């Protein structure tokens, strides 16, 4: 794909997302669109650490939940009235979540690969447990309410949709900037071979932590908007392992490590998941969902975007965009990847 085509594609998607609520006005459709956007944002922010650096986190809902709680508590503490003003507080929530993520990330990132995956699961449980136990702050298991905006049923999801869209655009933009920066190249190098990256002078520790913290801050804002739209937050809906898993699965489906992959994966899977649950028997839903996943991993192990990239490449090997192609390396391609990183550094 040429650069111009790509930009046109992104613009098209953006315009379509902006117009969506004007065309599809049904609140049911919008509520599904909101959940979809939430996953687009989560998968994209997950991608900054999981895709670029190859550090698979299954704990993104820890920060999603933290953001939700921080938002509810802040609105209450400053007596912010329901309506649009709460959205103005979102950047603060993002920063707050990011700050909290620093020590957590520092501890978690002392591990790699499988241990890291597990530690992120533990992280999620810690946040959930804190929400349950710090009763005087969080309301404990009973949960915490948001101020209720006085919007009609027909209008209700629109403000949330646009707020979420804003954060999603920010997430993708941040991912893009990170990708194009030295940080991004460093993260790719870490994914390919962390020891080697360190040897050639990539400050791996601070790069990984930066990715972790950025990703957490974005997830915090997304969680805040979602919790506000639900109007009620409690430990189980704030920190839900299924949300963590969903975000990671969507990123993988589309192609972890690419910019468009997580977006595409979420656009496909989030509505499918919601609709499937609505129309299909619960047990069958689980079986189908599981089977779908096995099929994806089996047939498109590197995700949709990298697989398409391969197709295009095999057709015209001349026009390879080295930076766009960065799916997971498969056997026998290690050298090609090294070349890629070196090419990137040279740029």
């Amino acid at each position, binding site marked *: 794909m040429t650069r111009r085509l790509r930009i046109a594609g992104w613009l098209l998607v953006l315009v379509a997302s902006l117009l969506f609520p004007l065309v599809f006005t049904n609140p049911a459709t919008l509520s599904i669109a909101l959940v979809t956007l939430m996953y687009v944002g989560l998968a994209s922010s997950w991608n900054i650490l999981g895709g670029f650096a190859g550090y698979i986190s299954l704990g993104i809902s820890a920060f999603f939940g933290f953001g939700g709680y921080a938002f509810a508590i802040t609105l209450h503490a400053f007596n912010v009235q329901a309506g649009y003003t709460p959205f103005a507080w979102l950047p603060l929530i993002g920063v707050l979540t990011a700050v909290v993520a620093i020590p957590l990330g520092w501890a978690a990132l002392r591990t790699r690969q499988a241990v890291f995956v597990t530690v992120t699961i533990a992280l999620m449980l810690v946040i959930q447990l804190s929400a349950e136990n710090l009763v005087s702050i969080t309301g404990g298991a009973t949960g915490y309410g948001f101020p209720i905006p006085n919007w009609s049923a027909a209008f209700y999801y629109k403000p949330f949709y646009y707020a979420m869209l804003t954060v999603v655009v920010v997430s993708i933009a941040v991912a893009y900037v990170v990708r194009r920066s030295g940080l991004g190249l460093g993260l790719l190098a870490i994914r390919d071979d962390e020891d080697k990256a360190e040897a050639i002078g990539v400050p791996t520790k601070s790069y990984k932590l930066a990715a972790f913290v950025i990703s957490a801050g974005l997830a915090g804002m997304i969680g805040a908007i979602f919790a506000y739209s639900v109007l009620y937050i409690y430990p189980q809906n704030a920190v839900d392992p299924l949300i963590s898993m969903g975000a990671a699965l969507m990123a993988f489906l589309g192609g972890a490590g690419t910019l468009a992959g997580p977006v595409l994966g979420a656009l496909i899977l989030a509505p499918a998941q919601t609709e499937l649950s609505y129309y299909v028997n619960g047990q069958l839903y689980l079986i189908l969902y*599981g089977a779908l996943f096995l099929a994806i991993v089996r047939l498109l192990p590197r995700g949709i975007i990298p697989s398409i990239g391969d197709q295009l490449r095999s057709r015209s090997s001349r026009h390879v965009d080295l930076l766009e192609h960065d799916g997971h390396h498969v056997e026998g391609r290690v050298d090609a990847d090294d070349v890629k990183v070196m090419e990137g550094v040279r740029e």
Partner: protein
Amino acid sequence: MNGGLLLGASVLGLLLGGIYGLMASGLALTFGVMRVINVGHSALVIAGAYMSYELFAHLHIDPFVSLVITMPVMFLIGMGLEMAFLQHLREDREQFSVLVTWAIALGVEGVLGYFCGTDLVQISTNYANSSFSIGGVQIVYIYLYGFLLGALLMGLLALLLRRTTFGWSLRATVLNRQAAQLIGIDVAKVSAIAFGIAAAMAAAGGALYGMLNTFNPGSWYDLIGDLLIIIVLGGFSSVRGAFIASLVVIMFQEILSVIISPTWADWSFFMLLAIVLIVRPSGFFGVKTREA
């Protein structure tokens, strides 16, 4: 603080730790041999619990006796799952294995829910509540049997790993998958068998879990977090480490439950994890491995 209570909780924690060790060791084994994080391991435990439950409820076979049926069946199921879904994973298998095993777990939950329903059940044998007293501490038979079963199976596994050719191949695979392949070990076969063994251990763990707890197909969510943390503390790929870590961790938790409070015991569980990560990221017993 009541001394008897403390002693009681320690004994209980030790026995329960042995049972958790049985479940956690399978998880460590799969990771060690196959580089697969099996988040579906606890779903296999629940599947094992349901098998024992059905055999007990309909054919009145004692859950300890029915292990001779459930363990081989789960062994085959485990091998089948490995060959069908995990064998083809090559590079990045640690990451992808999370997705694949998660999908398997959802499938298992769905199938169990479809056939067995979602009501909570428990394997209630007539000796479930019998206990005896030693020095003022009531020892519950079922916990004791569970612990003994765990110790027995762990012993057998150790024998298998240390004294047989298969065990040698398996340990070689744990140390270095590629090198093992180079020296002529059929890594694919070893992996499938190892997964089968882990599934069989899960079946045994499941029978015990089903006697001690009420469960339904969704119970695997509750279990997997605990098991994963135990194996992190145990050094991830070490079977022995997993077993010892679960003894330590569960005892620690049970004791804290009685001396502070159960809610804060959970907290300190994670604090323990944090401390271990900071001080010794390779776990209590971890050998220095690539990923630690």
